[in-house]
């Protein structure tokens, strides 16, 4: 099977998966006890208002029509309107996604780069204080729950030392000041970066264990591989050998990177709460508390798609890096 076919296959599977998840969510939410409107009644809406809403939202239609509407709506990026705010869900969620992304992507990327380097060093220079302290260090940070780690950092650097602000992405005054400016203006403000520092650091310390330890094990394992020995016997210079070692050793780490990106969304919820960061994690919690179904449903979908795309990225990466996976010939004896 050629590379092209491999990628095509994976793309197809991904699209299929997203479709299945969206459908599953549809079923899932329909199955939940109570329906959309019972809560509204609880909150004091009159029966006619409810009935009007039901017609408006098509809740009286047969299920398969609802499903059809659902899918077509999604495909046109129409996720309905928020119960709580009345505005379109997509408009509400979009900036949140961006806020989370600007936190998560750089943080996880930095984690993997730094963690990978540490891991490589440990793997190369085994034994001794450096290895021990590094392993203990990353493991300790990972054993502390991420939100608690965040709280610790806040208490150390914000309350006690007063270096960093305690929460939010920007102070309230600043938010109001720049609310008409283009979104990216905030990155120019020092204030933004001060707010950014602690949640970034929390993520980094917390997730450092994965790349560090995996890289370490990988380096140790690959060093023993016969093909490296063979390269050496062929007379390749030391530096070339090191480069090859790193290329092979970083494979597991590279493949874990998109997965970490994808799954970090769960850890993100707590961190965002602790730091009051206006991201998608916090939005999820807020909307669950407020029973804002359209938002909840959509955020679930976003989270699922985030994870699926992360895995898809891994598939693509692996197809590029490791020919054994994508180019035919595997299987057999």
């Amino acid at each position, binding site marked *: 099977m050629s590379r092209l076919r491999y990628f095509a296959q994976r793309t197809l599977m991904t699209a299929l998966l997203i479709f299945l998840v969206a459908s599953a969510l549809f079923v899932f939410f329909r199955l939940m006890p109570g329906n959309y409107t019972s809560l509204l009644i609880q909150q004091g809406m009159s029966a006619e208002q409810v009935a009007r809403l039901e017609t408006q939202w098509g809740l009286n239609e047969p299920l398969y029509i609802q499903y059809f509407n659902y899918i077509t709506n999604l495909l046109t990026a129409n996720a309905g309107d928020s119960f709580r705010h009345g505005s379109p869900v997509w408009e509400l969620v979009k900036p949140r996604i961006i806020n989370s992304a600007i936190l998560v992507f750089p943080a996880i990327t930095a984690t993997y780069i730094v963690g990978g380097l540490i891991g490589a060093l440990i793997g190369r220079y085994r034994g001794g204080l450096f290895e021990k302290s590094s392993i203990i260090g990353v493991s300790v940070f990972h054993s502390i729950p991420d939100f608690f780690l965040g709280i610790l950092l806040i208490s150390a650097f914000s309350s006690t030392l007063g270096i960093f602000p305690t929460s939010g992405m920007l102070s309230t005054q600043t938010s109001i000041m720049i609310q008409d400016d283009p979104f990216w203006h905030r990155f120019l403000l020092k204030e933004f970066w001060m707010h950014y520092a602690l949640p970034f650091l929390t993520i980094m310390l917390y997730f450092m264990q994965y790349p560090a330890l995996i890289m370490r094990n990988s380096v140790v394992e690959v060093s023993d591989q016969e093909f490296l020995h063979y390269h050496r016997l062929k*007379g*390749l210079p030391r530096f070339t050998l090191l480069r090859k070692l790193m290329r092979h050793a970083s494979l597991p780490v590279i493949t874990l990177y998109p997965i970490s990106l994808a799954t970090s969304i769960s850890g993100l919820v707590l961190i965002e709460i602790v730091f009051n960061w206006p991201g998608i994690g916090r939005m999820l919690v807020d909307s669950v508390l407020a029973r804002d179904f359209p938002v909840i449903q959509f955020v679930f979908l976003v989270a699922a798609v985030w994870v699926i795309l992360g895995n898809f990225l891994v598939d693509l990466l692996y197809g590029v890096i490791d*020919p054994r996976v994508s180019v035919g010939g595997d299987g057999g004896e």
Partner: protein
Amino acid sequence: MSDPILEFDGVDIEYETRGGTAVHAVNDASFAIDEHDYFGLVGESGCGKSTIADAVVGGLDENGAVTGGEIRYKGTPIQDYSEKEFNKNIRWTEISFIPQSSMNSLDPVMKLSQQAIEMAKYHTDMSKDEAVERLRELFDVVGLSESRIHDYPHQFSGGMQQRAIIAFALFLQPSLIIADEPTTALDVIMQDQILDHINDLKDDWEISMLMITHDISVVFENCDSMAVMHGGQVAEAGDVVELFDHPRHPYAILLQNAFPDVRYPDRELAIIDGHPPQLREKPDFCTFADRCPWSTQECYDGAPDPRPVAGDEEHLAWCVRADEMEELAADHLRKPEEEHSILEESQ
């Protein structure tokens, strides 16, 4: 005979283990490989033969070192070469290597052509195209389809991978090729083909060959000279026919008869008791003594010196009782004349 291309002169090789103790993998090894010779080094696991192979190309692990004696290649001592010197003077251009497991030795993320280009880049000033062209020729020589030079190793079967490895070994036209158990991982028919092929190549290209193996049959069939090792020491060395007809070291005698011979399936196999000793210290005795049916106190009084067998300086046995062995081991040495090879009746 021509001058030796590779000489081992009283070589000691040690490994340092984590705990600080040393393992004396090779002790006082001496033998010589002549130019264009096909030399077989045979012994069981742990005898030090692979260590010797590695040492020649400087492929010992970080914790291993040649601690005594000299390894001479074309007259020059090379045992103390640095990595750089090995890279520049020895590896691949002069001495190339056929490793035991081709499947594990070929870098899985590199196309075969890329590996050839890499070899050319670091040792010669061949252009990429020239390197690829040469690989094509070599594929033809080893019987692989030329169209497949751009494939990845995993797309080849085991036998084909081994041929590719042979093609690589020939790539820079070395003077000596070391083959470390080149056929152990292969089926018997493929093994035969590969060995046959190696024979032809050796003759066509006028290369000297050092074959490391545990299978004495392969040595007897293909090699010109040989050495038998046990427990880090060379037990016996010499011309293959000489050693076969007149072995004088107890281990060599017993080892020959421990291999099933398909011509005489009913013949009793020789049993060698025990196992080689752990070599925590430099052995000051014959490492075979514990297992030897004919050992005496003298065997423990110092490592044995080589003695010429029947006055032949080329055939040496490291045994204090070498002269007596003809009588002592008469039972084992008797080649059954009356035995009828079962294969003679087949077409």
